[in-house]
């Protein structure tokens, strides 16, 4: 699955789709593939503050728990409640229907520090080489 060109990406395998000071945040196709079958998602409530680098939720597969780290600071304005009942959407549509939260960014300018799609794909290719070496 291609990583959308308009998104920004983190080394913790989250994506951000930023429009003005609003960011939609999810986990990447690479991340869902690494996790395997997702069975449980825990997300903050609307109104919660998230802070760059701190965990704001968890995604669990059958075999593992994965923390989701905030790629930017801001206030949660909407949460994808569909994921409670259909966590497997994260496996089938990680860049679309399985968005996790929408956030009003404290400082939208910080987003430019994150990777674009090409840089992210180069990053995971490099990681793949390390682990198979």
């Amino acid at each position: 699955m291609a990583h959308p060109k308009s998104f920004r990406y983190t080394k913790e395998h989250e994506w951000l789709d930023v429009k003005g000071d609003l960011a939609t945040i999810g986990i990447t196709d690479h991340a869902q593939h690494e996790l395997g079958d997702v069975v449980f998602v825990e997300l903050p409530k609307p109104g919660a503050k998230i802070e760059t680098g701190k965990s704001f939720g968890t995604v669990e597969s059958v075999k593992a728990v994965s923390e989701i780290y905030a790629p930017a600071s801001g206030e949660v304005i909407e949460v994808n409640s569909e994921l409670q009942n259909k966590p497997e959407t994260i496996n089938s549509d990680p860049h679309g229907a399985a968005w996790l939260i929408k956030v009003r960014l404290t400082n939208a300018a910080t987003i430019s520090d994150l990777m674009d799609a090409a840089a992210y794909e180069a990053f995971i290719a490099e990681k793949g080489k390390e682990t198979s070496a």
Partner: protein
Amino acid sequence: MSELRKTSLNALHRRLGAKMVNFGGWDMPVEYPSSGGLIAEHKAVRGSVGVFDVSHMGDIRIHSGKKPGGALAAVQHIAMNDASKLAIGQAQYSAMLYPEGTFVDDVIVHRLGEDDYLLVINAGTREKDTNWVRESTKELDCVVEELSDAYTQLAIQGPRSAEVAQKLTDADLSTIKNYWFTRGTVCGLKNTLIARTGYTGEDGFEIYVPSDVATSERIWNQVMEAGRAFGIVPCGLGARNTLRLESKMALYGHEISEKIIVWEAGLDRYCKMEKGDFMGRAALERAKAAGVTRTLVGIEMIDRGIARDEYCCCNEAGERIGVVTSGSPSPTLGKNIALAYVPPAFSAVGTVLYVEIRGQKYKAQVVATPFYKRPKKAAAPQGA
């Protein structure tokens, strides 16, 4: 880090695109996206059939020294079940114990011949176990041989496994009961060990074939071909773990270890105190008189949350009372289940307790185990 060990099917797993993990020093497939992943693999085994590469398991043969009976005496000394009850061609679940009554490892003891036994042991404990067997039997009249690297071991598991395995061999598998084995020609290989054993809680067979890559891959491919009509899929260690957990089968380093004694683990029925002396017996006798302070229970989450290995159990007041040894979503039941050590006062079915997940208390309750039992038709007791 030292180099990971590989089974003879390693290259095949990689060609299939398996996700590989380090399991006890072995580079093993955890799941196969080409099979549909862990949950699909799990459901294939419960509903039809799946195949696992379990060649990382170890094999120790103990046979007679100068006089007959030496091997039986050795097995009786090092393992807690009563091997004198085994007929030739029969196997039993057992365990090797330290003098303290705690676990060296759990094993399946197969009686190969008149005074000839095969112990199948865990991968991560191979060297420890082999050294332990050699050391513990050095005064006894028997020969200990480590055969682990000689075999590729495949587990064909699921309600359709007998039909698949029967296509591969001239041996009549309908006469082989659960926890019995035979020898037959398998895919042209004469005198191949075929055991009706497994680690999934389903009917199943484990076959032991020569471990060279060409033979191992040929047999794997023939198993896949024989199972095609039943939708057979390759299964990894991820499904192996959820399958054994639903069936409450112990995993070394989790439910059993060098810190846990037999009575705590609830494996009493495989420990034959009346068979005579054996390693760990005296300590077990003392422990029985003293009573246990913790016991293994099955729990089911009531609150939305997944208990994981090593999470703490606590009471309503938040005081820690125990620990989860294995926890996972159960693909068969659609619930989050776990095994945990708790004080006996919390062990009755229906008892409410809490699991601490990321600093918060999640409600759970003790339930009857095994969590899953296969339908009666094919059911038979585990071991002798």
